[in-house]
């Protein structure tokens, strides 16, 4: 496989991990965020500093990156998730930018805008793919069970959820912490893929991109988020020769998806045996309707 193609696949794996985190928070818990690049930045710089300055093994560093991002997400979540609906989305813009500005201005620790070079290239294709698969399985398992139902209950109707005995605040913060962990891991892997970091890589555009792929993939569909990430990644590469028009093409694709599939590429469905069954049963329902009509 050519190095170029390998690079694209690694990047899609990494971005998919981050998108899975955002998918849990936005798609399954109903909390919109526009600042999750901040948690990727925390993860990336943690992994970079631990491996380069403290010679920590890369695997430990990546896990530490996820853990630190999770802890920070939790600490941010406790006071801010009292904000409901759009208010949290607005606060998250500020939080994401704050993290980036701290990294940019804490020169002695992060080298600021000059960038952080010399990170070992530990994110190979097998590493990225293994992390992607492992974290995908864990997330699917989590969603298919008591926590998944609790998150969805908080998303659909938090009053009803609390009257079914759920501490909704607890689940909202937990969802944010887990999504922080996923973005932190993605950031840690990103450091080992790019071998060079700059705070500007994790700006608001990156945050918006993360939420955009989740929305266009379909809120409440994990496979949708991954497909969204893959489509965006491939479009970026295909149109690289005319990269000055890239945002124009992004915009056009998003409009097309919005018109053609307002509920996102996958809607709420997941790829799997259940989807095939539901496609089949939908067909029979239509047939029944037809005979009625």
């Amino acid at each position, binding site marked *: 496989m050519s190095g170029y193609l390998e690079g694209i696949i690694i990047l899609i794996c990494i971005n998919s991990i981050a998108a899975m985190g955002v998918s849990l928070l936005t798609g399954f818990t109903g909390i919109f965020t526009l600042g999750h690049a901040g948690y990727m930045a925390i993860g990336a710089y943690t992994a970079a500093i631990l491996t380069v300055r403290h010679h920590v093994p890369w695997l430990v560093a990546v896990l530490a990156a996820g853990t630190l991002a999770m802890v920070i997400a939790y600490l941010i979540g406790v006071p801010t998730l009292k904000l409901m609906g759009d208010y949290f989305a607005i606060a998250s813009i500020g939080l994401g930018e704050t993290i980036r500005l701290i990294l940019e201005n804490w020169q002695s620790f992060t080298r600021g805008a000059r960038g952080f070079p010399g990170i070992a290239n530990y994110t190979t294709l097998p590493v990225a793919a293994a992390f992607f698969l492992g974290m995908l399985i*864990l997330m699917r398992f989590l969603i298919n069970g008591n926590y998944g139902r609790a998150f*969805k*209950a908080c998303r659909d109707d938090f009053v009803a959820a609390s*009257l*079914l*005995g759920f501490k909704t605040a607890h689940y909202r913060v937990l969802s944010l912490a887990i999504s922080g962990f996923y973005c932190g891991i993605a950031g840690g892997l990103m450091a080992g893929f790019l071998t060079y970091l700059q705070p500007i890589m994790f700006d608001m555009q990156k945050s918006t991109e993360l939420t955009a792929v989740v929305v266009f993939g379909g809120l409440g569909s994990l496979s949708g988020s991954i497909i969204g990430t893959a489509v965006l990644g491939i479009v970026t590469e295909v149109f690289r020769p005319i990269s000055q028009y890239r945002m124009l093409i992004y915009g056009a694709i998003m409009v097309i998806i919005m018109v053609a599939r307002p509920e996102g590429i996958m809607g*709420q469905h997941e790829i799997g045996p259940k989807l095939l069954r539901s496609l089949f049963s939908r067909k029979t329902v239509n047939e029944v309707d037809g005979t009625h009509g």
Partner: protein
Amino acid sequence: MADPILRLENLNKHFGGVHAVKDITFSLEQGELAGLIGPNGAGKTTVFNLITGVYSPDAGSIVFKGEDIASRKTYEVVSRGVARTFQNLRLFPRSTALENVMTACQQHFRYNFFEALTHMGRWRNNEKSIKKMSLDLLERVGLLEVAEQAAGTLPYGHQRRLEIARALALQPELLLLDEPAAGMNPEEVHVLNGLILNIHRDFNLTTLVIEHHMEVIMEICPHIICMNFGEKIAEGDPEHIQNNPEILKAYLGEEVEE
């Protein structure tokens, strides 16, 4: 006589200048099936919201099984054995009927985060138990055939019954039903009456029903509390309520004239 399971004492709640609930006092004995009636805006649903901790009262006490729950949070009240349905349905519309009930059932079959993450340990058995209990409840309210349909796509009467199933899944001792017959035609109301009476008996419940349909209240509730403008204006058995001039004036009288 044993202590009442629920006792409200001088309960008060203001919303700005509106005195929504004014010195409400009543109690329910264990195993009672009681009705709470009154014209629109009388404060009935507010009483439910106060009992379940959605609002906290400005003054007064709510004693449930000997414990004051007036300042408790919603989930704490629920964990003590209170469940309710809603006047304007609050199902999870995108989830299936089965998932809606399972979301409540899972409170009885717990497993921890790591078991959820790995599907190991108690996950398999408990998920099985949750599903079985949910299907039993759906069968009980006659919704087994639509278990896999999204709740939001069900007909209105089915959604009402689904809410009752979801509330029962919490295995409550006190069940609060907020206008369960709203929007139903007379036949549906008749079926619903049977359902309420059956679950009340079979699940060993104390039930409090808010209802506008007099045929529901008069037929099934031996104990009726009537509210108007936030105050309790009468309490007694159906006969007493039907002959009370105060209520005829406030409420029933208007319906009779029509």
